[in-house]
């Protein structure tokens, strides 16, 4: 058994994995925009401009416009992605959105990760009536229809970023509990746990020092995927009117606002934010997958 572990050594290192690099680059870009997007935006993403529903510049005009933008500082910045029905600059909004979307996704994910891992460790390591009950409750939570539950929490609790975060965290915690618990249950019968016991560690010590660090991987891998899905869910909530408040620059909200103009032929208000979500979530999925393949073996 252990000699064949040599195979595990052949797992590709991160740098060599082209997917990992793509995912990493996308996520890095989104993180960068979350930090600096609003600063870089040529217009205030929540204030109207006089131009309403103006389309993005034609492709043929782009080179000239780019040139002008670089050369002269005085002209009003170009609406690269056009403006929406209220006259908000779509480009500015698209690059400002990660701050909102990512904050929601990361905070919700962080919260549920923290809760899920702690509870998962507790329930996996110490099996008793109390922890069994916790698991059953988490089962029930997990069988909720995700999207509808999130809607209920946000629509009835009030449309605010805080409530979205709470809703997402509530939905994701059971997943982490389950993953961590399963891993803890697998790890706690491993030889090194017994060995730690044999050299005189206490149970709490073993749980925290030995089992916990070795049980984090599934939850951490999942969390990359979950961050992506949290962004999707946030956008979806906005889309049905149970998400963030307008005119917050948030991709789903922008798609939703723009959706009405599509039959009038105005595609740009919803197409650009859509591309942004599409790429971002894909980036997280790719990263998660790459991490999974890297760490699945050990």
């Amino acid at each position, binding site marked *: 058994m252990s000699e064949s572990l040599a195979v595990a050594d052949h797992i590709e290192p991160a740098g060599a994995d082209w997917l990992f690099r793509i995912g990493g680059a996308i996520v890095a870009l989104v993180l960068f925009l979350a930090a600096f997007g609003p600063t870089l935006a040529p217009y205030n993403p929540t204030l109207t401009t006089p131009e309403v529903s103006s389309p993005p510049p034609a492709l043929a005009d782009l080179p000239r416009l780019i040139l002008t933008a670089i050369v002269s500082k005085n002209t009003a910045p170009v609406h690269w992605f056009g403006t929406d029905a209220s*006259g908000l600059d779509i480009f500015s909004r698209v690059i400002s959105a990660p701050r909102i979307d990512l904050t929601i996704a990361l905070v919700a994910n962080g919260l549920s990760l923290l809760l899920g891992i702690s509870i998962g460790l507790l329930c996996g390591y110490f099996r008793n009536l109390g922890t069994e009950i916790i698991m059953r409750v988490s089962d029930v939570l997990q069988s909720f229809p995700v999207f509808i539950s999130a809607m209920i929490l946000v629509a009835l609790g009030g*449309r605010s970023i805080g409530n979205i975060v709470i809703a997402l965290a509530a939905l994701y915690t059971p997943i982490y509990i389950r993953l961590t618990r399963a891993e803890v249950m697998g790890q706690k019968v491993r030889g090194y746990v017994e060995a730690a016991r044999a050299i005189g560690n206490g149970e709490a010590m073993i749980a925290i020092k030995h089992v916990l660090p070795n049980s984090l991987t599934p939850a951490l891998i999942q969390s990359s995927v979950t961050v992506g899905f949290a962004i999707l869910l946030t956008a979806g909530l906005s889309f049905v*009117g149970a998400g963030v408040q307008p*005119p917050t620059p948030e991709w789903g909200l922008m798609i939703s*606002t723009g959706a009405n103009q599509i*039959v009038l032929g105005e595609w740009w208000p919803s197409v650009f934010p859509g591309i942004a979500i599409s790429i971002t979530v894909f980036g997280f999925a790719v990263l998660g997958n790459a991490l999974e393949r890297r760490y699945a073996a050990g």
Partner: protein
Amino acid sequence: EDVPAGLNYDGPAAAIPTSQTGMVNVMEPLVYYATKEVNSEGVSIPDFGKFEGRLAESWTFDKATLTWTFKLRAGVKGCGGATLTADDVLYTFARAKSVSGAAPIGWFLSNVGSIANFTPAVFGDKEENKKAKVLGDEVTKVDDLTVKIRQAEPNALFLPVLTIFGLMIFDKETMEKHATKEDPWSHNFVNNEGMGSFGAYCIERWTKDNEFALTANPDYYRGKPAIDRVVMKKVPQSSNRVVVLQSGQAQLAQSLTPKEYDSLRKAPGVKVGGHSGNQNLFVHMNFKSKPFDNIKVRQAIAYAIPYDAIIANGYFGQASAWAGVVPSTYPGYSAAAEPYKTDIAKAKALLAEAGFPDGKGLEAFADSFALSYVAEKETTVGPIVNAIQSSLREAGFPVTLNPMPQTQYGDRQLVKKDLPFAINEQEKPIGVDAGYATQLFFVSGDKGGLNNMINYSNPMVDDTWAKARVEPDNAKRDAMLASIQKQLMSDVAWLPVVEYKTQFAWSDKISGIGWHPDNSIRFFDLKGK
């Protein structure tokens, strides 16, 4: 969505435009406004100064006893085959007074029209409340075709309230057929199946919250309608309604966004028209929320609203500045001498005078500056609130946007009355009268200002209205109303922004669109080509 279809006369859905469309087409009022003209866009307009008989052939009013006597039309036949008699009218008012439905609309209208004994005593379960729910001698039958209705005090709103859907006449015979012991007033029938009534159309099929189909009443007393069958279907999302209309799947669409109406104007085979009747947009600032108790702040905001941008980008020109707090078409309207104009410099100056130079100090009132609006109307109101937000920010107000679901908005606006700052484009006084509006919106809460959502209270307004309400002389009444409106404008009770056109889009295969104060189409008026 904003257009569920239904006929729930007694339910909450009665407040929903399509429910009203259903009701006004299957039911018939005692009296209604005469037609004034057909405007340049091909839309007919009622004359608020002139009433004509509908189910009532004629009527008289005795000033001394405050009693109205209605002579009913003979031989009017309803969809159920019954013929109209005085009992039907009595049934209608008795039902209204029973307040047995979920929304006591009939009672409310009667109360506004000062019909005697329609008092708040009807609410409650005590013995005296129970008695108050029974129709007494305020509405009596003289003979099979004559009915008397007595008012408690002179009130010019009497005839206007009779035109409203909530007091249209039931067909007692059909209704009672569907009554049960638990449900003597046939609410189940009305809420779920159909209607006993004398209107131009009869219900063929009705899928609640989805669609209804009406067929012409062949015995309708004004003649069989030109269009035999009308299907009204809920198509959620206004953009989809544009699609069905354009593709010829529908002949009439309403509740589109101004932008959509604008784009349809150029579309082939489609006509767009409307009338600036009673719909308007105003800014709501609650007197109970600081710093809106400060008149300078209110005025500063008034000068910071981008009126022209709203008309141009929000309504595509289909709106005009509003210089009063009552629809300008309504009797008794009086325009302010000096309406507010956009003037950021002045706004800033006023703000400084109020003690907040450049908006400093306003951060403390962040909650107050969350500009609320109905989330479901995002597509229509979105561009407007965005423009307002941007402009107010320029003037130094820390405005944020706060869309909320219709329900929550309604609750906070009308029940809790704690909405600090809002954009409102849905308060059209259905009673066609400046006094009605005053009574509803501006009289102090404890003096009957039912919908005084800004908690406005001014003894001058209260007192003047108390007098005007019972003033039989129209000229005097109008003068009093004018002074009230002047006061309201100078207090910036509401901050009127625009009056906008109620629009419809229809296929050029039909004509005869008419505007009515309830904004519901009367299918009887329509003609095919």
